């Protein structure tokens, strides 16, 4: 038996390896190019730690998208959720003087409520989640402006300290929060039975249902978790800004989606993955940071993010097709062989009728 299995051991193809690490390879190349072009500004510890420390909100926001994405649902409202929590926390803490722990608690609660609303509408009325969350996104953006149309300043120093100021190993603490969150999600999705169930729901809800999985509950739960993580991102964002901004947070939606899709093309191609997403975030950051240091204006960011999203999706589909073709070919060969064997067997043993 073991011989047979060894013979069947999975063959590795160069193209498969290339695909798996394509993002990382391109990342290294970009990094090297910028380093050579700007050794004094780009490739410095100062700049590297800025890059690492400045992207925590984007990473957390991408994680909020990742969770329902694995269950097969788009959540477009994460950035609006983030902004809403940001403004509410800033308003309560800075303007109304509520204590910081209470405002954080309220902020997280708001995120959970928004997630519950999304999840309830999607699962109860069976509406396309893309449309529902687009709606809540716009709705929340409106509410934000109702609360405040200008930036709010003056949140507690403690929040700023623990998010941005008190560096650990020279990097702002928010980076480590994002990393811990990413590790938790990677653990849940890759190591637990619960995470597997979410994956099955995302891949084929009908199979999941007929296997006894409570599909609506899992989808609902993923929206709630997504809401919670978005709120967490909103609180970190409040610390980063030192206050509230009613519009700036909304722009996170594009790069976050780009990171999630780009992340699904590396490490485990074809699967949304927490660590793949974090790699994608820093890949995108390297690009925009380097271009900004080159003196290009900030609109280059949008071009870069949008382009990266589209290319990432094309890339993942093309790679998937070529792999499928290869596997289909292999399966066909094996089937033809099995048929041949069967026919020979039938010819040998004439007592079995040869045809139906």
């Amino acid at each position, binding site marked *: *038996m073991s011989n*047979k*299995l060894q013979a*069947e051991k*999975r063959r590795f193809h160069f193209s498969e390896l290339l695909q798996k690490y394509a993002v990382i390879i391109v990342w290294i190349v970009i990094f090297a190019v910028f380093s050579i072009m700007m050794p004094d500004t780009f490739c410095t510890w100062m700049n590297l730690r800025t890059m690492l420390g400045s992207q925590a909100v984007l990473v957390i926001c991408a994680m909020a998208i990742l969770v329902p994405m694995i269950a097969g649902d788009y959540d477009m409202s994460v950035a609006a959720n983030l902004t809403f929590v940001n403004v509410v926390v800033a308003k309560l803490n800075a303007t109304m003087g509520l204590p910081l722990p209470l405002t954080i608690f309220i902020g997280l609660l708001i995120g959970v409520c928004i997630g519950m609303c999304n999840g309830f509408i999607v699962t109860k009325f069976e509406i396309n989640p893309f449309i529902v969350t687009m709606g809540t996104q716009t709705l929340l953006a409106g509410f934000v402006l109702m609360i405040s149309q200008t930036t709010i300043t003056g949140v507690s120093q403690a929040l700023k300290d623990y998010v941005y100021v008190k560096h650990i190993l020279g990097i702002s603490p928010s980076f480590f929060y994002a990393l811990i969150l990413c590790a938790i999600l990677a653990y849940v999705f890759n*190591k*637990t*039975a*619960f995470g*597997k*169930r979410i*994956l*099955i729901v995302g*891949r*084929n809800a*009908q*199979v*999941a*249902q*007929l*296997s*006894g*999985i*409570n599909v609506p509950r899992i989808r609902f739960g993923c929206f709630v978790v997504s809401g919670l993580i978005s709120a967490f991102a909103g609180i970190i964002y409040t610390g980063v800004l030192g206050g509230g901004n009613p519009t700036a947070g909304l722009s996170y939606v594009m790069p976050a989606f780009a990171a999630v899709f780009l992340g699904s093309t590396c490490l485990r191609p*074809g699967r949304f993955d927490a660590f793949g997403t974090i790699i994608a975030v820093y890949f995108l950051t390297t690009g925009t940071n380097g271009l900004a240091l080159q003196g290009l204006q900030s609109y280059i960011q949008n071009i870069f993010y949008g382009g990266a999203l589209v290319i990432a999706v094309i890339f993942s589909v093309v790679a998937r097709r070529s792999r*499928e073709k290869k*596997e*289909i070919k*292999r*399966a066909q060969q*094996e*089937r033809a062989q*099995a*048929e041949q064997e*069967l*026919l020979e067997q039938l010819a040998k043993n004439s007592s079995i009728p040869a*045809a*139906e």
Partner: protein
Amino acid sequence: MGITEEEERFIRKETTLYVKNVSKTFGSNRALSGINLMIKPGEIHGLLGQNGCGKSTLIKILSGYHVPDPGGALWINGTQVTLPLPPGEFTKYGMSFVHQDLGLVNDLTVTENWAMNEIALTNNMRMDWNAVKADALKIFAKYNVSIDPDEEVANIGPMQRAMLAILRAVEDIHRNKATMEQHRGLLVLDEPTVFLPRTEVDTLFDLVRRIAQEGISVMFVSHDLDEVMELTDAFTVLRDGKNGGSGSTAVASKDQIIEMILGKKLNAYHVDTKDAEVFQRQEPVLRVEELMGNIVRGAKFSAHRGEVLGITGLIGSGFEEIPYLLFGAVKGATGVMEFQGKRQDMSRYSPRKAVEDRLALIPADRKTMGGAATLQVTENIMMQSLRHYRPHFLNFKKLREKSLDLISNYEIVPADPELEFGQLSGGNAQKVLLAKWIQENPDLLILHEPTQGIDIGARQAIYRLIEKTVKELGMTVICSSSDYEQLEQICDRVLIFVQGRIVSELVGAEITKDRITKLCYETALGA
């Protein structure tokens, strides 16, 4: 082509469709061999035969979908055409097809559906919708049909849907001027009555007769012998890909036609009730009462431990709904199920509860309902069993080992646990699903068309597996299938559904392919 001048003259003058010596081979499997068929102008011609007899292959050759083997010949409207026919161009020859699914888009209006071919083929940017609507209304009025042209197809009745599809197909024939000058044309109706309520079938038949009166020939494909007897002028029977017989409906008797379908006379069967007695002495573990679904109308049955219970009927009779009803996967179901002493209200049953009660369901659609095609074999095979492993820290090595064990026990080829499930052949995919559920030792295993689309080698392997499982684990198996031969091979008892109700029960040696076929058809006649 070797035909006499006289024959040629006859074909030219007297036939709409003339099929001579047409064969079709798929790989090593001969689906049709030397089929002959003749339909006269204005004739309603029934095409009969069991599942897999070659009816649909023949139709697909006519529509240009299949390329027949060389050696056959085909005349349409009296003119010989070169085979194979170009796909999709059958309207050029004055033919039109209405398939079982009717080819309507439910979300579009009647008018939009009416103009479907025009929308698909025209290069005009602008469509004159008022003209299309007027055209549709004119035709509806001509045939005495009332359908609201602005209504969405989803909102009109099943009868009106069928009529819309048929009239649309007839219009395609009418548009072909050359055919109309000869007063010919061929309308193929491929089981259009399957989804219709019985009471409305007569209305449809009136419409078909009116169409035939204009000179258009109708090929009426049906399972239902009763309908064929009532509607058609002549019939042709296919059996195992060969001509089973043909004749005039007015002259032939039902028994004669059934004999043609089966290929032999129905003998008196020797009944051996030994197996049945064994089970009848036991208490049943499963009792179902007043089970209602979308098709099933109040089914009542029971099953014993270690029994393989077959459930069958003609397509659309309700037997295919039973697996999903029992598993709580049909919305709006009602009834009571008592399994191992636990009573369940079926209106509140769900697959989740079914799994808890140790039921297992293997659906007919393996790749979209049975397993997740884009996930790996391991992930599919272990889907049900993850709870036996540390839930908070899955041991992938152990999962992989277990999955390799199963792959080797169930002889799944290729033996690659990382392969995507969707890449497997039908037989191997089915083995994965059997392994997925059977490793959980279910008490009731529900199968739906367990060997549909599976080659004969794998089929035997699956029968052996089922037999072995029943013997070793003593579970109850319910097998819902339209493969009568399979039922004969593996079942201890078979229930036959007709129009949503159980009408007969066969036990032990009574279960034969012929007997089941006869009961399916005959009871439909008696209704």
